[in-house]
């Protein structure tokens, strides 16, 4: 357990549009840092943050659109968005 805690990582997370209601303390444009275990994926972050998985349509990791099962790394910025488009 102790060894695992040492390996704990920190990632920056943010949410957009209709997902904002699940993290009401975040101001528009705001983000927060959370601690995760090595090997964590965006799908895990969605659980940790309490976002409804079926409402998350887009995951952006360090400005690159990514998949739910991609493993995140220490210091990553991960953004979650619902279905969006328009123009």
């Amino acid at each position: 357990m102790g060894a695992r805690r040492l390996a704990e990582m920190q990632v920056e997370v943010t949410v957009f549009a209709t997902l904002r209601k699940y993290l009401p303390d975040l101001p528009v444009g705001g983000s927060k840092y959370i601690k995760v275990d090595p090997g964590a994926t965006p799908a895990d972050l969605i659980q940790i943050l309490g976002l409804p998985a079926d409402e998350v349509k887009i995951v952006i990791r360090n400005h690159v659109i990514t998949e739910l099962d991609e493993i995140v790394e220490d210091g990553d910025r991960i953004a979650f968005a619902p279905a969006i488009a328009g123009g």
Partner: protein
Amino acid sequence: MTRKIVRINMSNQKATYEDVPKKWAKWGGRGMTSAIVFEEIPPTCHPLGPNNKVVIAPGWVTGTPAAPSSGRTSFGGKSPLTGTIKESNAGGLSGQKIAKLGLAAIILEGTPAKDQWYYLVITKDGVEFKDASDLMGKGMYEIDEILWKDYPKTAVIGIGQAGEMKLSNAGISVNDPENKPGRYAGRGGLGAVLGARGIKAIVIDDAGGPGVDIANKELFEKGRKNLTEAIQEHALTKKDGGLNAYGTDVLMNIVNEAGGLPTRNFSAGQFEGAAKISGEAIAEVVEKRDGKGMTGHGCHPGCIIQCSNIYPDESGEALVSCLEYETAWALGANCGIDNLDIIARMTRECNDLGLDTIEAGNSIAIAMEGGLLEFGDAEGALKLFNEIRNKTPMGRILGQGVEATAKAFGVHRVPTVKGQSMPAYEPRAIKGIGVTYATSTMGADHTSGYTIAPEIAGVSGKLDPLTDEGKADLSLAFQASTAFIDSSGYCLFIAFPILDIQTGFEGMVDTVAGVMGIDLTGDDAIALGKEVLKMERLFNERAGFTKEDDRLPEFMRYEKLPPHDVVWSMTDEELDKVFAWVHED
């Protein structure tokens, strides 16, 4: 009842009605405007000269009862901004009323005597030509108000001072349900072409009109139900979904996050002030000011998506509708401006003067790069609109759009294709949209082939925005289906639910087939879209355009765009594939 075309000759102020000839009987919306432009306008004519025309057409299903979100009006002609064919469509009140008068198209041609200006009143009884002297020099807010005094609840189409001056960035305004301007056929300068016809405004009164015939009511009703359900079910278009809750500016934060938000005249892909001008920020302002502002506003009766908004001023009074993504970006991020209130004021200036917000913001950005003022100087940018209002030489330069402004200020980083400046997606970071910008018959235009759907939004599949592979085919598929949707009168935003929900797509096609009384499948839809593209492409070829015009600006090939540090890498051969079929099929 047979659909009619009204041909309005401004040289002698006569209007004649004709049945829609067989060759155009299958068209509506963009298909109709492009077919008429293709056949009747000499491709090499001067866009402001006597041989250009403005063609106005409602879509196939526009004006039918309860076809959801189908109030678009197409405006066509030869563009003074690009020199190409142009179709620019708008929401607002006009489409449904034109259709309910039994009209499939209005053709405006000829030129009145010098300095003669008219406004037209089109009713079930015909066309009246009215002296517009009292309207001249006025902006669209005042024009809409004045005309509603005599013609309440009508559709008002019109041009602001920019159209009177025949500036290449003059758009055509359509009033919204609150009788405010802001639903613009903005792109491509068709407001100047209307000005060249001596027309300041057109009132459309559909009282007592025959309405729109539906050939197969059962099929129409079945399709309407399926389409409505798809729109109401899809996360993006349903009530309180992304578009309804935040408007199109819901895109600001996400495109910025993906590194594809053009910033400070296309010198970076991210703007540090993006959140402050995002849809989320607009929604917060509306809520905090607790006045006449709103999100979830509909631009025309019968829209069930309602992506528009009314932005309130500091005291809660309505300031402008609508603050869209493209607008907030062009007047904001691309000018380095993060002050939403000033962006809203600039938007109101555009709506009043009759300017396309994309080209207006991009022209200011070019002037900033050229040293007229600093990037981020919001107050300075706002004041520039007085130059246009006062008809100064500076105002006339800015009102000519990005390319003219770049020449005046000695700027070589010019983000245009075929004379029209790029909208709010960086093609170096989102390659498919770059193919659309390069090859579209309209000049740089995101709406003509919105590959953003799979490249960013995960709608209609998922593709890596940063790779070139497959993007030529993708762009063509989107361009063809868009030409079909633009002909239908449906808002382009129905594309998102119908791309993801098959019954919605079938429903949309069924409504078109139901109104027109034809057999139509999904495959036919793409074929019809390609037919429209082919007419447009051939018009451009005859106007002198070649494949060498289907290119992005040079600087995008050698200037790396942060944060991805990428250049435009698509080969010319790949771009040339997009329209190769025009001479093969």
